[in-house]
Every structure is written in C-alpha cells, then in structure tokens.
C-alpha cells in the first residue's frame, strides 16, 4: 500500500472521516479544538514576578519549564524560559485582557488565536503514533507526566501537550502547516486506523 496521500496535491488535507485500516475503534482519532491561543512572555529577568502575577490571577503558578500547568480556566504550556502558550476556551480578547492584567509590567501578551491550531489526538495507537513523529522520550518512566515539549514532527514545528490520559495528547501547529500536519498524522496512523474529525 503506497503512502495514502502520495498523489493528493500537497495543498489538500485528508478528508474528514475514516482513513487507513478498518479497525474499530480506530487507533487514532484527530479532532480540532476551538480555543484561544496566546503567547505570554515575561520581560527579561522578570519571570518570577510574571509567574507570581499569573499565579495570583489564575490560582496556580505556571512552571517555568516545558510542562503543562493547568489552572481553572487557562492551560499554560512552557515553551521557553519565561514564556508560555496559554490556552483557554474563552474568547481570545477575554484571555488577553486577563493575562495582561495579571502580568502588569512584568511581561507581554501576544495573541496567536486563529494562527495556531489545536488538535486533540486520542486512541490506543496515539503513543505509537507519537513515537513515529517525535524524537523525544515520552515514555512515562522517562518523562514527567505533565511534559509538554515544543519540537518538530518531521519538518512541522509543533508543541505537544498531555491530554489527560496516557493515550490522549494535544498538538499545537501553525495554521499554514495544518494540511501538512494532518497528512503526516493520518498517513502515520493509517496502519492502526484513523478517524479525522476536522
């Protein structure tokens, strides 16, 4: 069986629905999530103060590491020292305002909503799928349970974050790469069956 999309024009994402082996339930399901995505950046040397401000506002202190910190309303993913991606189900303007308020002069907020797409991956084959795409040891014995690496999946830059269970992950990719990312994910998941819900 040739690569699923070898002849589908590069601009096209795979169609929604079932792909690959007809296994039930499919090894992987992929769905988009409609969330606001905002970059939070502490000013140089002000990370601690920024964290304190965020903690005071959101009830938990985002860790200054490549991990996911959940608060009641906002998920913070460390992407660089003093820098996080904040995800929330509320409108981005609300999130931006809350973050700006929390940071005060300790940092900046840059709205990325609409430009970053969040994909939810779930299913028994997700760990194997990630093994194919990510050159990082994500095995629970080696990586913290809240590990959220920013990395590259075979030429597509992405941030990965835990999705709650061992086989659930979320993936943030730039919108211009969405079709390419879906092609790659679905092609790699095909042997275990894949359902695309986008």
């Amino acid at each position: 069986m040739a690569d699923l999309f070898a002849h589908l024009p590069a601009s096209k994402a795979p169609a929604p629905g079932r792909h690959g082996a007809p296994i039930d339930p499919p090894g992987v399901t992929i769905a988009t999530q409609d969330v606001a995505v905002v970059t939070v950046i502490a000013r140089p040397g002000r990370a601690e103060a920024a964290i304190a401000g965020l903690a005071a506002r959101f009830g938990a202190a985002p860790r200054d590491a490549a991990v996911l910190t959940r608060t009641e309303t906002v998920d913070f993913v460390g992407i660089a020292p003093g820098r996080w991606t904040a995800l929330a189900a509320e409108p981005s303007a609300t999130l931006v305002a809350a973050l700006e308020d929390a940071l005060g002069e300790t940092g900046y907020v840059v709205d990325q909503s609409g430009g970053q797409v969040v994909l939810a991956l779930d299913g028994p084959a997700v760990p194997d799928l990630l093994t194919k795409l990510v050159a990082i040891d994500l095995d629970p014995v080696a990586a913290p349970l809240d590990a959220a690496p920013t990395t590259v999946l075979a030429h597509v830059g992405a941030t990965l974050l835990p999705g709650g269970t061992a086989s659930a992950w979320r993936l943030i990719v730039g919108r211009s790469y969405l079709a390419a990312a879906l092609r790659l994910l679905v092609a790699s998941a095909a042997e275990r069956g894949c359902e695309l819900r986008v």
Partner: protein
Amino acid sequence: MSRLARGGLIDRARPFAFTFDGRPYQGFQGDTLASALLASDVRLVGRSFKYHRPRGIVGCGTEEPNALVELRTGARREPNAKATTVELFDGLDARSQNAWPSLAFDAMAVNGLLSPFFGAAFYYKTFMWPKAAWEKLYEPMIRRAAGLGRTAEAPDPDAYDKAHAFCDLLVIGSGPSGLTAALTAARSGARVILAEEDFRFGGRLLSERTAIDGAAPLAFVDRVLAELASLPNVRLMSRTSLFGVYDGGTYGALERLADHLPVPAPFQPRQRLWKIVAKRAVLAAGALDRPIVFGGNDRPGVMLAQAVETFVARHAVAPAKTMAVFANNDAAWTTAFAAHDAGQNVAALIDTRRDVAPGLLAGAKARGLRTLLGGEVIATKGKTLTSIEVAVGGKVERIAVDGLAMSGGFSPAVHLTCHHGGRPVWNDALAAFVPGNCPPGLTVAGAAAGAYALSACLETGAAEGAKAAADLGFAVPAVDVPKAEDAPTALAAFWYVEGSKGMAFVDFQNDVAAKDVKLAAKEGFTSVEHLKRYTTLGMATDQGKLANVPGLAILAKVTGRTIAETGTTLFRPPWSPVTLAAFAGHHRGQDFRPARITPTHALAEELGAVFVEAGPWLRASYFPKAGETDWRATVAREVAAVREGVGLIDVSTFGKIELCGPDVGLLLDRVYANTFSTLAVGKARYGVMCREDGMVMDDGTTARLGPDRWIMTTTTANAAKVHQHLEFCLQVLWPDLDVVTASVSERWAQISISGPKARDTLARVLDEDAVIAPEAFPYMGAVETSVLGGVTARLFRLSFAGELGWEIAVPADRGEALARALLAAGAEFGITPYGLEALAVMRIEKGHVSGPELNGQTTIADLGMGRMASTKKDWIGRVMAGRPGLVDPNRPGFVGFRPVDRSQRLSAGAHLLEQGAAAATANDRGWISSATWSPTLGHAIGLGFLAGGAARIGEVVRAWDGLRGTDVAVEVCAPAFYDPEGVRLRG
C-alpha cells in the same frame, strides 16, 4: 529433493510455492530462499561481478557474497537481495541477475578467459587510446558488464515509516550472549530493546546442539523469550537490523515489516526505520565463519561450514549429496558431526592441522568419518562442484563430492564497534580481529567479543547486561548463568593454499583473487586501504565480511609484515544494506516537504488561480480568465486592474515578528542600517538590514503600534533567518536590551489592496471608515482597528505595487472572510485578485528590489540605497561595509534597463557588455537580475547591476544572453520606471 526427513525449524505443514528464474519450486515456512533452493537442488544461483563466473550459495546470512537475486517484478523489483536473508513466502518470485542470455550460459563469462589480463586494476593502464573511445566504447561496455541487478521499473509503490525508541539498554543480536544480556538487564527493571536481524530469535542456538542446563538450546531460547515477552520494560524486535552506530547513543535500525509477504497488508508500511537512542548497548552479533583461499574455492557447492550447519540443522536441508569438510579449526568438526548425524553424507574431513584434539578424532572415528590431517584442497572441478583435489602427505587425491564445507576460522562481527572510527585489534590466539576502541556506551559480548565457547557466550552476555544496568543505577538481581557444555574451539591460522590450481578467490562477489592481492602489493599498493581501492576487495555488497581478513593476511604475507602491522580497513555503516526509501519514509511525492498554505488558498482555488511553489509556500501565481490565451495576457489584465482600479493579493507569507519592550528602538537601530528609534507610534518605516559582513540580509517594513510594541515584516524567504538573527542579537550580542520577540507569522492573514479605488473599497469593510481618511492616515501610517464587525485588524498604508494601498492584517482564520468581503466591496470597481506574477511586474516597474537583488552578494550601496545607511550610529554590517572591495566604484550598482529598440525583450540572467566588446569574462560588466514586459509602459524593462552603477545612466550597453542566443542594446536608466516620485502611493 535434498530435504532431510526430520528436524529443522521449518513448518512442514505450511508448504510455500515459489519460482526461481521462472521455474516453480517448493519450500516451507521457516525456509530462507537459499535453504529452499538448496532443498530443491538448485546450486547455481548467480554470476560474479567481473568474470561472470557461476556462483552458488556460500553463507547463511548477511555475509553472503554470491547468491544475489532480484525479487518481485515491475515497480516492486528489488535487486541484489541475498537469498540467504530472504524469508520464503508463498508466491515468492526470484530471478538470477548479471547473466545473459541465461544463468546457465552467460555470454559474459568469456571475461573469465581474459582473467590473466583483467587482473587488479588493469583498466587504469589501458583503454586510453584513441582518446574518444573511453566514453564512446570502453566505458559503456564496462558499465553494461558491471552492476548487478536492475532497479525497479517505476516509483516504489510501498509505504515506509520511521520511528524513534529510547531505552536503557539495547541488545544487538539474540544468540546466547544477547539473550542473557537482555534478560539480566531486563530483570533489573531497565528498559531493554532486543533487536535481531533474523526472523527468528536465537542466533546460533537455532542450529546448535550443545545442551544448555542439560536441555536442548532451543528450550533455553523459548524460556528466555517467554520471560522477556512478559516484561513490560522489554521490547523485542525481530527482522530488525541494527545498521549503524551514530553519535549520542543513537542507533539506526531497519525493521522489515512486510518483506516476508508478497505485498504489504493494506496500510502496512513495508519497512520501518528506527532511530534508537540507547544509554548503553551490548553488541552480541556473533562471529562469521570465513573462507579459505584456494583454487576453485568459488565453485557452486563450496560453502562455509557454519552455513552447512545452519542449512542442515535449522532448515533440514542436505546441501549436498556427498560433502567434504576443509578447515583449520575444531568448530568445523562439530559441523561435520552434526551434518553426518542429521543424515548428510560426509566423505572426508580435511584439516590443515596435523594435531587435532583426540576427542574430535574419536568423534570422527565413531561416525566412520574419514579424516585427512595436514591436508589441503588444491583444486575443484565442475560447473557446480563435482570433485576436489586434496594434497595430503605429499600425495594428491581426488575425492568426488558435490559439496565442500570450508572454514578458515571465525571473524567476530566487530563491525558496529568501528562505526566511530575505532579500529579492531588483532588477536593472535584467535587469529581474528576483536573489538578495539568502541563507541561510548557500547560493549561487546559473546562470539563478537571473541568468546566462542557457549558457556563464555552465556556468561559474557549476562555480565555485560548486568554491568550496563548497574552502571545506570539499576539494582541487578543475582545472575544465575545457565550452564552449557562447551564444544572445542581450537584453531591454527591458515589462509591460503599456495600453489593451488585455478583462481583462488578472496572477494567472491568482486572477483578479487589471491593473485590480485599480490599484484597490488607488487605495484606498491601495500596499505590495506590502497589494496581495497586498487582491487575493490571488500567493496562489494557484503562489505568484505568474508574477504577482508584472508585478503589482508595474504597482503601481510607478501609484504613481510604481521597481520597486526598490516591492519584492517574501516567498517562503516550500514552493517547490512538499507533500503533508500526507508530513509525517506513518508517524505516523498507530494509530501517531500510540508506545503504551507495561505489563509486564502481555498478562495484562490475557487477563483481559478494557478499556484506556484514559493519555498515551502504555495501561492497564487495568476488568475486566468476564460478567453485569455496565455499567462501574459492574464498578468497584463491584473496589472492594469491594479493601476487603474483596485486589486488584491494575499501577502500573508511575509515573516511577521512582534517586538515588545522599551529598548526595541535601540535594537532596531542596530539591526537596521537606517534609524528606527525615532519612529512615531502609528507609523511604519522601510528598513534594510545587513549581515555583519556588510551585505544586505533582508528588507521590510517595521511599524510602531505602541510605545513598547512594534511589528516587523520580513521577506517570505527570510522569515526564520531574521527571527534567529534578532534572537542572536538579543541573547548573544546585547543581552542587556529589554526586548522580547514573538513570531506572529501564522497569526495574521495579510491582504494587500492597491489601486486608485483601494480606499473606496477598504472603507466598506472597516468598522470605522474614518481611520483611512487621507488626512488621518498618511502614507506609511499604521493603526490597529477592526473590520467585518469586530474582527481585530491592523492596517498599514503601503504598497509594493506602487499604488494607493493598504495591507490589512486579520487573524489567520478570518483571512478568507476578509478577502471575500473585499472582493464584494470592490466589485463595482472591478476589483481583481492578482498573483505573484503581476506583483513581480509591478515591483519591477517601481524599481523595488526583491529576492533576485537581495541575493546576499549586494550591499546597500550596490542597491542604490546607500543614503539610507546611518553614519551616526553603529549598525550591524557598518564596519565591514567600508572595506575597499565593497566601496569600489567599479562594483556593479543597481540600475534599470530598457531596450533601445522597444520591441525587443529582456531576459533575467543576461550579462552586460559594452557595445562592441567580445563576450568574455574580462568584459563582463554586470547582469540583469529581474526583467519583465511592462504592460503599463508597453515595452520590456529590466533591473540589474552594472559596473559603475547610477553614474552610467543614459548610456547604452548590451544585455547578452548567450544561453538563449540574444544580444540586446539597452539604455541604462534609473530603476524606477513608473511613478518615480511615488505620487500615486501618497495619493
């Protein structure tokens, strides 16, 4: 049929039909193609590289030099498959290769007759006359004769996959040493991967009889595997070759998922490339039996003793009706006994040694085997072997056999230990190279380390496994190494039967004979590496696994050195050949590289755009309409629409970097040649940034949105590079600057709308149209506002096309909606979507520089923008831009061109010559970087670089395009052809 009646690890209940050279045969599940061919009495399997000599099966694994076949057909045709590693399946279709018209009668075998002249490297000494004949005659002939199989006929239809794995301990090989290494480490809780190239775990234990803990070795294998399989911290990988040891504990492995099937199952990849990152590795790859060099040792029917043992014991095949054994070591006696006991007829046991352990002699006697001590095989006969001549005790005797098992002793499989450049070391007692300096983290156990006795394999494996786990901090439970009897392992080095008759081969596949080694030495090629390159010894598909040691032993002898002094060539990856497609994985065809899609892609498709690759992006090139005969007509229409009405283009591909902090102005002053710190909020400015060597790196506009917030645009191509550069400035050069950056390239869909009707159109999508009132929003203004009823937007008043225009940015997911709204709003003005082609035309008309001018070879001064460069501040590139070569008045400077005869065309890539000058490098005065036909002006125009630059405006030179055969007189002019004062922009 030479299938033994009993035994073997084949499933006699599962017969497989297969064909070889079109003829049908049968084997069983558990066979390799080699064992199935032997079982079917097929001895002649291939032809050699140079002399096209008939060849059979020599080995039983990846060391095989002779039995290379083509598998499958058409797009799935695979050349050079080793029959000894091809797992048999029902329907397998294999063919011999490198033979014409047939395997049995190969015309090229005449080469063999010329072998006295076709010695090592003869081709360097001849084929030189007449001069032209090399390319026309000799080389094509050589090429056709050389090569082995044929590539597939069409693109590979199978899918390939890649994957990563991480572990504490990687064990390579699953013989006794690999099994105990894996088990010991696994019991400690370490994460273990056990990789085995074969389709079955067990290594030599699959064909050996020596008892372990009093039971058959297979029972031990099953027991260990069962335990390993039960442990969650263990991954067992069969059909997986570890092919290379790379840096940082990264190991390359190839897993064959579907090569034992006619075609992969639906959606199943054929093979998977693994990159395994292991903290420790134990190499337990065993040892390879090696040939003895004697006349006629390549005759089909002559095999390695280890292979004979494998075929007999594992595959239940008698490789010959009657067999002799020729060896210098004890192991071959074990082989002979095993073969005899399994039903293989063994006519004689010839050992070069005169003293052999009494136990072995007794074993032979008990079986009634004839022994010829101190004997040497000096010749063989038959197209496939029919008899051998043995010299013993001064007499020569002919023995009729159709099989000969030879063994020159063992070569530990040290290959992977050499992948970091480490050299194995010679061990006289073993007459073998054993591992030397290993890659960090890798240790060696079992026969690969020179520990041949079974008990030593079990012990060293367990010890290395335990050591690795303990090293990593795991508590290793006490190890109970199983007990094994030990077969004798003595040997006396012996390489070459001097004076034997016929060609005595060292490298079978490449037809390198003992005489070639001698000739090379005589001609001064006495370094092993020279020997290799001069004779091609060790360069075949088996990479000298069999040939290397005998070859350099002969070299050592003729040069009067020891083998240790002679040394060995370097083993490099891969250990066994790796499919090229596996390295590519999914990245082929349309998925070679990810395509980046602009926010308005679907709309552009709807509007009939033709797309073009712009780096990773797919961008609309032009939007043809019915009735337009070629793209030029389309582009002319699009340009006219912008110049006269209004047009729109998606420019989201620009890099966009948000800069925040009090020191942004300071930073920009340093990275841009011109000044930015003075830029007012609500304004944008064009900037040029240079590399430290004074060459222009990128250009673009940067706007100040607030006191501490700026947005920079970069060219599409340099987006990542500029961001990296800014971070270098901030993190390495000037960490004291209070600035942070964020890429927002993905965030903003950016649409450029230009033309006299741009304002009228834009006003209709803005929530507050007052923001673009002429007085409120001058040229180079920037403002944050909203469109389409509350969608955040940023507006910049600028236009690359050179008309009244804005760039409007909205969140990327709203880009298409914005574009649709603009199209609707501008419908009454005839709004026209345009593509990169029209944009390129308009920027050339305006004399704006772009990729072809910003090619890394031009300075700001070259580009005619020298006045922009500040002299009041330091900026990156300032110092080096002052070098004499960069201010040389003869440097080609940026100017425009138009043909003197306005009906002529101009082509980019033409060089500039003075009128009357000959077309020669010495007269080269520059080149045309961009050219187009200007629909606005009605003639061709060009931009380029001319020695002397702007000082030559008004003169006439020639645009010489020898490649296309044109030579056009051109007038040098200022680069801006259209609206040079920028009135329209500011209107």
